[in-house]
């Protein structure tokens, strides 16, 4: 990627809007909530400059509805929120999953449950991001650890949502959202931008909005007002979009929704390994926690401790590959997360008893510090 811009001091929430606009966001609907509010404020300022639209809706539910509506009308759309608002958006996130409307939902996590700790960080929405809406559905959740990465991942969130016709959740936390770091942004013209696949009317006799014409599980999407009227419903529907209660239609639709994500898991999943080749213990983390883990692991390596880390950039679908490809030397997995222990259950399931899986959890509204990671690794290696 060509870097032409000068270094700037930028906040995570600001980098999110910068990335979104470069990715093609032209619609934002939101509702004020700490610690995500800057995203709305900056979007309100920047969107009209590029001919885009910003609206502050009457509530979180309405914001999510407006985002889906705008996306159907052809604009790449985003909303941002935090825990309580994320809960309110869940019904319509499920609507976007079933109706296959691309959109990006940013959740700058704060301490919960309920109003919780509005100004303090947490990673307590890992499971809400996966299962917050009802019913069987796939979801893509990605989580940045650095301000520069917020920019890249926001672009990626739009690209994935357009490519797979699915809502994508950018799971940040208060630290990443509010932290300012020196960043060098790329020349926008060098950023890869993906747009939704449109129906090719020269090849099809009739447009069926939910027909898998290309065999990749992703039906081409026409925008409202572009000459092909069609029906969209949150009911289970056949390829024409008509409601159906047929067991065959239902099973086929749900299977396709799942397959379009899980068949492309290698394209969707991203993670980073550090010093895992010969490690005895590996720390798994994501978001701001991964910053402390990276520091801790580097310090411990200087002491010749056989410790490595995996930083999950994609949380859902869970990268089982990251666990499966760990070398035999790895006996211990420490799951560091700012919650009471959420992702650890998935790691345990993925490990299938091959590793000693231990949680490093903090749910006090404070970051997990490098020292706490170091202490935990030492304790685990001593007991091993």
């Amino acid at each position, binding site marked *: 990627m060509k870097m032409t811009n000068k270094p700037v001091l930028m906040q995570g929430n600001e980098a999110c809007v910068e990335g979104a606009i470069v990715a093609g966001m*032209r*619609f934002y*609907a939101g509702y004020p909530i700490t610690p995500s509010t800057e995203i709305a404020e900056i979007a309100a*300022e920047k969107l*009209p*400059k590029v*001919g885009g*639209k910003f*609206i502050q*809706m*009457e*509530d979180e*539910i*309405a*914001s*999510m*509805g*407006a*985002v*889906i*509506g*705008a*996306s*159907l*009308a*052809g*604009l790449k*759309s985003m909303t941002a929120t935090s825990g309580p608002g994320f809960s309110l958006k869940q*019904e*319509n996130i499920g*609507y976007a999953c079933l109706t296959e409307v691309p959109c990006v939902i940013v959740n700058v996590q704060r301490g919960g449950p309920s109003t919780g700790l509005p100004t303090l960080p947490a990673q307590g929405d890992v499971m809400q991001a996966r299962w917050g809406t009802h019913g069987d559905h796939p979801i893509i959740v990605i989580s940045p650890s650095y301000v520069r990465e917020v920019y890249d991942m926001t672009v990626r969130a739009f690209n994935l949502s357009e490519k797979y016709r699915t809502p994508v959740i950018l799971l940040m936390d208060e630290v990443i959202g509010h932290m300012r770091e020196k960043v060098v942004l790329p020349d926008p013209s060098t950023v890869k931008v993906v747009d939704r696949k449109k129906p090719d009317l020269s090849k099809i006799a009739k447009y069926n909005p939910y027909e898998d014409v290309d065999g990749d599980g992703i039906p081409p999407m026409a925008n*409202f*007002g*572009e*000459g*092909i*009227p*069609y*029906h*969209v*419903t*949150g*009911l289970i529907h056949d390829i024409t979009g*008509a*409601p159906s209660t047929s067991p065959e239609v239902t099973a086929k639709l749900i299977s396709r929704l799942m397959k379009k994500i899980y068949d492309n898991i290698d394209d969707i999943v991203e993670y980073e390994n550090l010093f895992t080749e010969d490690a005895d213990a590996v720390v798994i983390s994501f978001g701001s926690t991964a910053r402390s883990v990276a520091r801790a692991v580097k310090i411990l390596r200087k002491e010749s401790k056989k410790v490595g880390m995996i930083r999950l950039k994609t949380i859902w679908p869970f990268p089982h590959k990251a666990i499966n490809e760990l070398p035999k030397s790895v006996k211990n997995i420490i799951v560091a997360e700012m919650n009471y222990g959420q992702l650890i259950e998935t790691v345990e399931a993925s490990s299938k008893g091959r590793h000693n899986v231990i949680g490093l959890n903090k749910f006090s509204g404070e970051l997990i510090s490098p020292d706490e990671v170091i202490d935990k690794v030492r304790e685990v290696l001593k007991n091993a």
Partner: protein
Amino acid sequence: MRKSLEKYYRIERLPHIWCPGCGHGIITGAVVRAIDNLKIDQDKICIVSGIGCSSRAPGYLNFNTLHTTHGRALAFATGIKLANPDLKVIVLTGDGDCTAIGGNHFIHSARRNIDITTIIFNNNIYGMTSGQYSPMTPKGAYATTAPYGNIDRNFDLCKLAQAAGATYVARATVYHVPQLIKMIEKAIMHKGFSVVEAASICPTYFGRKNKLGSPVKMMEMLKDNAVTIKAAEKMSKEELEGKIVIGEFYEEVAPEYTEEYMKIIKKAQGVD
């Protein structure tokens, strides 16, 4: 049905799910006739609904149609209209969908004066879930969740719309179809948030629970209970009890939301 109207329907999806005697087909037909009279390009119309009996209407109509989540039609419609102001956006909703779970979106859409036409199929009951009371169920009426009579006071939807900022507000009934069609036409052509309440009938649930008799009897009740705005002005509060006041309540030319936003874009870009 007139042959010339068939193009507006997804004929292959008929018959519809509504019960015999339901008034909703009449409102749907009025919407179609209004659009036909206005000669608007079908692809330039987007019809959005929420959840409930009324909200099934768009599925039978051959336009850009969106059947959303319960109460949220106006939120989705706001996104569509702001994203593409060239589209004529029409929301078809019910009394429960619009005034209970969707009440917040209704008042705020009215407040913004966004160019969306909202047509409320008011059958005074939750029909889809088989007869629970809604915010439009008259006080004293019976419902499956009001087995001893409803103690909730009902909204006057037209007053609510007007107070919240809607710039065209009218009411007709499924008995007064020519008036209803005219109102829908005016609402669609009105620049701003327009509201048409269509008093409908639900013989299956509201009618049965309240022993109102056959669909024909319920239609006759609409005819007998309807009074014009002019006539209502001369009636006392007691005399108006149980009456349905029909007519155009309010019309105003006011700045429209998406047009105002286009000015924001120009301002942000420094071109004016």
